[in-house]
Each structure stands twice: as C-alpha cells, then as structure tokens.
C-alpha cells in the first residue's frame, strides 16, 4: 500500500526492537519516521523498512556499481556520465595494475563498469574500477559488440536481487552476456545481433509487466513466435 502522507511508524512501539534501519525514501523528522516518496513501503524482519521505487532517474549512492560512459579525458582523471545530476570523476590510477607509467587504455565513449567511493549530495561523485584490495573484480572498461539501453531502477534492483525470477527466466532463453548497472543501464551481448535486440526489447518491456505476463511473453519468444 503506497502513500505519501504522514505515514508514521512509532519508534516507541514496544513490540519492535529499539533500532530501526531505514532505507531509501524514508526520513527522520524529530522522533518520527516520515515517508517522502510515492512508493511501496517494504518491510523486512526484524527492523528494516524502505520504499521500493519505480523511478527512472538515478541518484548516485556510495558502493553502487554502475555503467558509465567516458565523456572527457583530461590529464589525470576521466569524467564519466553516470546518469546523475553531475558527471563523476574516475582517476586513471583507479584501475587494477595501473601505475603512472602503465596507464589504462580508456578512450572517450568507452563504457566502464565502476563503483562509487564518494557519492553524496555535497560533493562531486567519484568512481573506482577496483575494490578495496586493488583487484578489478569484474570492473573496468568493457563493451565491444553489445547494446546499451536504459530501464527503470526498479527493474535493475529486481535483476540484481538474489533468486531473481526475471534473471532465471532470461537464462532459459538465449545465452548472453549481461552487465547490470544500478543507474538503470543494461548492456547485453549475445551470439547474434538479432538475439541481442530481442533480449534488449524484452527487458525494456518487462519493466511494467506482472510476473504472469512476463512469463507468458518469454514463453512466446522461446517458441519463436515473435
């Protein structure tokens, strides 16, 4: 049930534990927890609450992995368009095995899969292509021969959740390589261009479908009807 009025959860309720973890979409105002977005309120036991949104616009958050497009290469840093209100900066040393002599091979227009280390409303966002131990862990430049497209943030979260139904349905279709960026961007590559396009169209359309309709659609595609 969604609401954007004063949906208050009492923090002094005696059955709930003392600490409540609030996710995105909830704000604390005094001693009350107030909803600030029009979404569905989700609750995970014992004490996690968050708003599950269908929005399309990405707001950078620390720790999220995204697909960015390199727009400017100037001196020591690259400027990456991550879909937010500002371009993020990516240092050339933030790649695995990169040193001052051994620069990474990144051109303007390349796709990078990176993670935010600084992302708050007051500072310019910063990306890195390696994890805290210095290993790439799947991040870095990628993308020859595939297709990049945008979906809503809700679909991306559904794809990345454990035991994702959408993902398991998709795996039964064609073998493909899929990169999921939490800024709503997906990159798909399959063995044939036609299959790549089919998968891209399917993912864009199953954004707004119920589970039933989606399975029906995937079944029709698998049978080659489309």
């Amino acid at each position, binding site marked *: *049930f*969604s*609401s*954007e*009025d*004063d949906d208050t959860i009492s923090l002094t309720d005696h059955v709930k534990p003392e600490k409540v973890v609030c996710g995105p*979409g909830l*704000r604390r105002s005094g001693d009350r927890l*107030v909803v*600030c*977005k*029009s*979404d*569905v309120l989700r609750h995970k036991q014992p004490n996690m609450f968050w708003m599950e*949104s*269908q*929005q*399309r*616009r990405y*707001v950078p958050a620390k720790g999220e992995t995204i697909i960015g497009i390199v727009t400017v290469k100037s001196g020591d840093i690259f400027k990456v368009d991550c879909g*937010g*209100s*500002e*371009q993020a900066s990516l240092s050339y040393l933030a790649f695995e095995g990169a040193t001052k002599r051994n620069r990474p091979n990144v051109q303007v227009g390349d796709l990078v899969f990176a993670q935010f280390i600084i992302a708050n*409303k*007051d500072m310019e966002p910063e990306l890195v292509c390696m994890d805290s131990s210095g290993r790439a862990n799947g991040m870095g430049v990628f993308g020859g021969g595939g297709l990049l497209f945008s979906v809503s943030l809700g679909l991306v979260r559904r794809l990345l959740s454990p035991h994702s139904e959408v993902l398991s349905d998709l795996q039964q279709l064609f073998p493909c390589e899929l990169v999921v960026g939490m800024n709503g961007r997906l990159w798909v590559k399959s063995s044939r261009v036609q299959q790549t396009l089919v998968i891209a169209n399917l993912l864009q359309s199953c954004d*707004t479908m*119920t589970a039933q309709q989606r399975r029906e659609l995937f079944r029709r595609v698998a049978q080659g009807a489309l």
Partner: protein
Amino acid sequence: MEVCGSSGVSLREFGCEQSLLSRPDGSASFTQGDTSVLAGVYGPAEVKVSKEIYDRATLEVLIQPKVGLPSVRERSQEQCVRETCEASLLLSLHPRSSLTLVLQLIHDDGSVSFSKTLCAVKFVVNPLLMFLVECSSLAVPQLLSCFLNAACMALMDAGLPMSCLFCGVTCAIDTDGQIITDPSAAQEKESRALMTFAIDSKERKVMMSSTKGSFSVHELQLCIAVSQKASEKIFQFYRDSVQRRYSKTL
C-alpha cells in the same frame, strides 16, 4: 461545477494517468471536467552554472498554452506553481541540480475574461487581513488548479522527495453570494470573485492563493474552508489512483 451550501462540496469528475511519457523522469496527465493538462518532470539533472544554487535544487516551471507562445499570463501561473512546488519539495536533498517541470495544456473549458486580478503567493491566511489591493497580473483560476494537480502527480511519479502533497481547488462567489467549487467557464463569467488555493496534504493549510474580484474577509474564510473540504476528495483521489497503479506489482 456544482453549487455547494454548507453541506457538501461537489467537484467535476477527474481522471489522472501517470508515467505516460517515456522521455521525462516523471509524467502525469490530469483531467478535471473538460480541462486536461499534461505534466512532465525532469530531474535532478545537470544545471547551468549561472542558475545553480549551492544548497538547493533549482526548480524551473514551464507552462505551454494550447495555442501560441507563452505570454505574461503563463508567466504568472508559472510563478504560482513554482512557489507551491518549492514549498513542498525537499530541494535541499539535491543541491546544485535542476528540476524542470513542463506543463502542457491539452484542452480547456473556454477562457475567462481578462479583468484585473489579485495575486497573492505563498502565505498562510491571517483572518484579520483584508485583501482588496488590486494589481494587474492575469491569471485564469480554474486552469491553475488543474496545473497544480497535474504538477503534484508528476512530481510523485518522478520519485522526487516531498514533504507533503498539494492540490489546487478553485472557488467562485456568484452574484448571490453563493460559493461554488470548481466552477465551469460559464459560472466563472457570472461570478463576482474567483479564487484558487493550493492546499497541502498534511495540515490542510493554504500554500498559495490567487484571487480575482472583490470579496470580504468573511467570504474569503468561507471559501478557504470550502476548499479545504474539497481538497479531501482530491487527496483521496490521489491515493486511489496511486494505489491502483502499484496494485499491479503487489
């Protein structure tokens, strides 16, 4: 369109649809009787350095009339809508970014005469004040409430953080002194005063008011009370339509 006494308020039927446009981050269309408005929201997006504000988002409202280019009338409506939106959005969560709200009038009931109007923006009503100062800005009250409703639904659809919802209600006082909510074009022409209020959802307070004509303080207070009652219906409508939208995924 209906006459209301002290018993109940009647409004024309409304309809609304969210997420109909694929390009904007949020969009909504709102129909009130014969008036239909389409709203699109973009944001938080990049902002020009000349327009950026260091601690808040920059909100820009653009109103496009049905025919022709925007004129002074649209500018005054834009200001009313912008002040209301700025009061309800949590702009400090997105500093140095821009929010753009575009409102396109799809169909209207027929326009209202261009007599002198009174525009008072973003104040909380003090019952002891008299509002008989006239200025020469132009505003069409009934369109303004439709713009406000469409704007609120589009902002909700875009997922922008807000501290409260708002809705627009129009009232007319006809020559007999009767208060009519949501007047039609014909009723507007015969009325001696027309008012539009933006009412917030938390405490039903007046966020913005735009009035035309002459009326007494007592009549103003009555109109505000009537508008607050009418806003309940609109907020209930918001709730129902959003619930219907999310019931698909639940």
